């Protein structure tokens, strides 16, 4: 067997792997943020990015800050929870929502939408725009939740970087948007601020998928690119939570790489609407 070129690298790897577990334990005990059921490989990568951001050498050097500097914790948690999206991300999904799902939602007198893991709010505004364009705003209520309070604050502000505007515009058009995206924001310097009217029917709330329970009688739940970070037991638990939170016939939209696998305990409670866009519907005949 070949020896490692750099025995220190192997020792550091083993130390970092354990430091990651201790770091997770510290976050949980000190602040109640529970990353213990998050996939380790990408969690570790993001923790290592934090070491560079904070100018410390090793992953374990983040632990004292985690324990003693509450002000840093929201930054740590934000970075670990990857709140990255864009307006109308994966426009084909929004196109299908617009063309197939919204018309069916329109059959309900009141439409409750749960955006679980809303991060910085890109999907909140995307959805609010689509509801407005479909004339459904007044009948709808969006509950946008996240376990990261800092992300919730940012989402409520609705300020995004204009450097991504070309992508946002393209996404909007590909999602079937007929207006001009600029109708929905004010540009200022390098920033864009989404119009406040879009939040008319939006409530932001703290909700932790790891620890909290059923959230609402929802007609549509969107939870995209959240489950990929969870271990299988947590995935299963969250999917069950979604099934229990939906009205019969309600819709569930997952991320492009998140399947409701056949082995999921709630698989037989859903029927498939779109395999490519990961849209499911709670069966009307119950469980």
């Amino acid at each position, binding site marked *: 067997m070949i020896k490692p070129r750099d025995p220190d690298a192997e020792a550091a790897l083993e130390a970092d792997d354990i430091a990651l577990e201790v770091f997770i334990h510290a976050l949980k005990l000190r602040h109640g943020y529970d990353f213990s059921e998050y996939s380790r490989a990408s969690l570790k990568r993001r923790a290592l990015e934090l070491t560079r951001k904070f100018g410390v050498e090793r992953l374990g050097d983040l632990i004292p800050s985690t324990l003693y500097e509450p002000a840093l914790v929201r930054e740590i948690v934000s970075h670990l929870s990857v709140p990255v999206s864009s307006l109308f991300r994966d426009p084909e999904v929004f196109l299908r929502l617009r063309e197939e799902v919204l018309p069916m939602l329109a059959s309900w007198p009141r439409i409750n939408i749960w955006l679980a893991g809303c991060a910085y709010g890109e999907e909140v505004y995307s959805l609010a725009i689509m509801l407005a364009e479909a004339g459904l705003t007044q009948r709808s209520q969006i509950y946008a939740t996240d376990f990261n309070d800092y992300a919730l604050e940012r989402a409520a502000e609705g300020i995004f970087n204009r450097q991504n505007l070309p992508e946002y515009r393209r996404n909007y058009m590909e999602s079937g948007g007929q207006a001009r995206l600029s109708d929905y924001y004010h540009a200022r310097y390098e920033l864009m601020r989404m119009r406040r009217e879009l939040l008319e029917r939006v409530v932001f709330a703290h909700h932790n998928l790891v620890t909290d329970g059923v959230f609402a009688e929802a007609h549509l739940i969107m939870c995209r690119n959240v489950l990929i970070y969870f271990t299988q037991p947590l995935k299963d638990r969250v999917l069950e939570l979604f099934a229990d939170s939906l009205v019969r016939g309600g819709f569930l939209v997952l991320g492009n*790489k998140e399947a409701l696998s056949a082995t999921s305990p709630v698989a037989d409670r859903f029927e498939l609407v779109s395999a490519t866009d990961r849209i499911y519907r709670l069966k009307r005949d119950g469980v």
Partner: protein
Amino acid sequence: MSESGYAALAIGGSAGSLEVLCGILEGLVSPTRLAVVVCLHTASREIGELCTVLSRHSALPVIEAQESAAVAPNQVHVAGGGYHLLVERAATFALCAGPRIQYARPSIDVLFESMADTYRRRLAGMLLSGANGDGAAGLRAIHRLGGLTIVQSPETASAPEMPQAALKLFAPDRQNTPDQLIDAVRGISRLAR
């Protein structure tokens, strides 16, 4: 560096790497205990087509790497677009929707570094033609943890920047021509365990 005893082969490439990659896949001996993981800079909608193309050159099944799926031997797993691909310690795939790294998602660095952590000296890494610096740091991570590191010799690469970036960063075990890469992969797949 011997070619025996590897459990996984990580291959990264970008512009100009497809043809070389097809040759490499043809070199794979089947059945093998080796698991192959490929990361090109592929846009999300091209993945199905890419797997189809690669399948024609491979005796092993070529499939998109699925979140939570096992990194199975005797298969070629290809990173899809729009997400970073990582390998967990339990040799299963993980995805990350985080920001692009060096303008790339999937990032070769991200894949290589996570595979280096998991397989350590039982990993071989190959970095092919490409027009940017992604993969160099990842290949060095493989090197540090005792894995075998091979770059396509820049003079044979239609876009030499990628192997050159690695050569600037550290001394990989080998610089191989496409033909040598095929020989290497034949040995690695035959002697895998």
